């Protein structure tokens, strides 16, 4: 009844873990891009804002 280490459940769990980690890194990347843009907005720096929206570092 309890799934073994080679069962399909274990595979699913492994893929799930991989994708959870991937999502975390994606959200960190998104957060840093957003942070740069919001930073330019708060500083009311139009040229910096346009630069940060149009270029991805």
């Amino acid at each position: 009844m309890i799934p073994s280490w080679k069962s399909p459940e274990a595979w699913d769990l492994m893929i799930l873990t991989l994708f959870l980690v991937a999502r975390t890194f994606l959200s960190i990347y998104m957060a840093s891009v957003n942070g740069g843009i919001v930073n330019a907005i708060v500083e009311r720096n139009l040229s910096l804002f346009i630069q940060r929206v149009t270029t991805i570092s």
Partner: protein
Amino acid sequence: MKIIGLGMVAVPASFVNSFLDFLNRKLALRFRRRLTDFFHGTYLKDMVFYQLGNLDSRIGNPDQRLTADIEKWANTLSTIYANFTKPTLDIVLFSKKLAEIMGWAGPLLVIAWYLLSGFVLKLVSPPFGKLIAGEQRLEGEYRASQTDLVHHAE
């Protein structure tokens, strides 16, 4: 225009989100199948279902337990993994990122605040576990009464 770059990140991001949902449900379904197989194996062997229903009163409403409760349990077990590991990893990685920018004092303060508010919430919230157990028991009894009614409707 490199804004297309952000759009190209958004596409795999939305895919990852939906795929996570898909994997969760798939895992829940596998768990449910395994449990249902196992429990029905014992339930249908050697007239156990008869003993359970008519001779033994230790396990009430076996039908509810075998159908709805197993499904709920499998769903909860599959989501508990994602709901526990992802925030933990998030906390570690985001704290590291924040610490690079503003030092360790900020993230530590945030974590301390969350621990404190979680503790206060724990103190003031009602016993959800007991309430949900009671709810499930009542659901089972309600269902069993409905079935009885149909059986005696001749």
